[in-house]
């Protein structure tokens, strides 16, 4: 049937319309097709690049919003400090609520009453300690306020600055016992320090207000009075501001009267 079918089909094709400029139209269409394919490739590339940017942004935002690293006990040295202020957050990412600094909450009102303030961004903290630079209304430095907690042994007693073997007899208030160690005899190195211990507990708190060194008797005065240092040291909120596991051991800043 091959030959007959071939001949039959020829009759079917009678009435075929003329070709016209079909060849040119084929090449015009090929040019359009090529442009569309090029655009598709470019769009796909742009889309891929955009996707990479979005994923990179999301990953970066996720990593930046992670909690800041903390100093593990026993690994910090005096140079290792962590800024107490929150790290900058990328826009569009909800910033976490600022961490409340319980020590600062107690200290700051006392400073304001004396027309002093904590120097912005000066707060430093480490395992078991907090420290703030203080300035007056004119921006002149007025020394530092330093607070620390220490884990002590059961047989620990309040130290005596002049005799390492002796024990001081503490005063008592509420469930706390404390000793003040103020020394303003040297106008260039004035310090006020109070050490507090909760009855029967192994955690001791030390609060120090140290005046600006070598600034003279007036400007070298500590930012807090002896009574205010005692007030801070016997405020339960200050002890509670530290985590149970915190201990100012290795890397602890100096205190004029050492606790351990």
């Amino acid at each position, binding site marked *: *049937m*091959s030959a007959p*079918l*071939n001949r*039959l*089909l020829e*009759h*079917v*094709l*009678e*009435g*075929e*319309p003329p*070709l016209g400029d*079909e*060849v040119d*139209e*084929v*090449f015009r*269409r*090929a040019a*359009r*097709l*090529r442009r569309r*394919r090029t655009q598709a490739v470019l769009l796909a590339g742009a889309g891929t690049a955009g996707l990479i940017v979005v994923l990179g942004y999301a990953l970066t935002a996720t990593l930046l919003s992670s909690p800041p690293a903390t100093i593990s006990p026993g690994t910090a040295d005096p140079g290792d400090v962590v800024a107490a202020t929150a790290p900058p957050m990328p826009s569009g990412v909800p910033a976490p609520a600022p961490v409340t600094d319980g020590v600062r909450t107690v200290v700051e009102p006392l400073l304001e009453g004396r027309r002093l303030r904590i120097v912005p961004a000066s707060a430093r903290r480490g395992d078991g300690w907090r420290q703030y630079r203080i300035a007056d209304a004119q921006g002149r430095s007025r020394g530092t306020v330093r607070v620390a907690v220490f884990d002590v042994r059961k047989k620990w007693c309040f130290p005596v600055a002049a005799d390492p073997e002796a024990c001081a007899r503490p005063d008592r208030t509420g469930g706390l016992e404390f000793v003040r160690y103020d020394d303003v005899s040297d106008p260039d190195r004035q310090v006020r320090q109070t050490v507090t211990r909760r009855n029967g507990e192994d955690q001791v708190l030390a609060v120090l207000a140290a005046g600006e060194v070598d600034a003279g008797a007036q400007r070298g005065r500590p930012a807090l009075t002896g009574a205010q240092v005692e007030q801070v040291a016997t405020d339960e909120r200050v002890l509670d501001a530290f985590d149970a596991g915190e201990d100012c051991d290795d890397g602890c800043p100096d205190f004029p009267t050492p606790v351990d």
Partner: protein
Amino acid sequence: MSGENDTALRDFVTSRLPQLRRSAFLMCGDWRMATELTRATLARMVTDSRRGVVADPDVYAYADLMEACRRRNRRREHVFVASPGAAGVEAESILLLDALHKLTPRCRAVLVLRHWDGFDVDATGAMLDLDEEQVAAYERAGLAALEKMLGESEAAMAG
């Protein structure tokens, strides 16, 4: 065809376009659609030839055209559409087209490629992605069905 210049491509398009369009018409029964499908197939062939990815332009063009016709005309019901201004079409031609379009698209493609375009079994298999036995089977079945339908139609017209 890869690497050849536009002149060679234009020569190929000029020489193959009429036959491709006729094959498309036998596949779809509509000259306007046949023209459109042929134009699209050759445009793809030209574009891909310039990219150097066309090994055999005839196989590429007929395979693409048959696939395009198959996608556009899956249903077996056929409506013959003559070209605008064409003279009257003979009844026998309409009956043949109608019988052709009652076959499956693949069976119809085998008959068109083998008996209209004159390709051998190997080339037809390459264009339709079939092996030799499948091409032969489609061809036998298509011719038998076509002969039967045409015989019935002639008997009906004679009666």
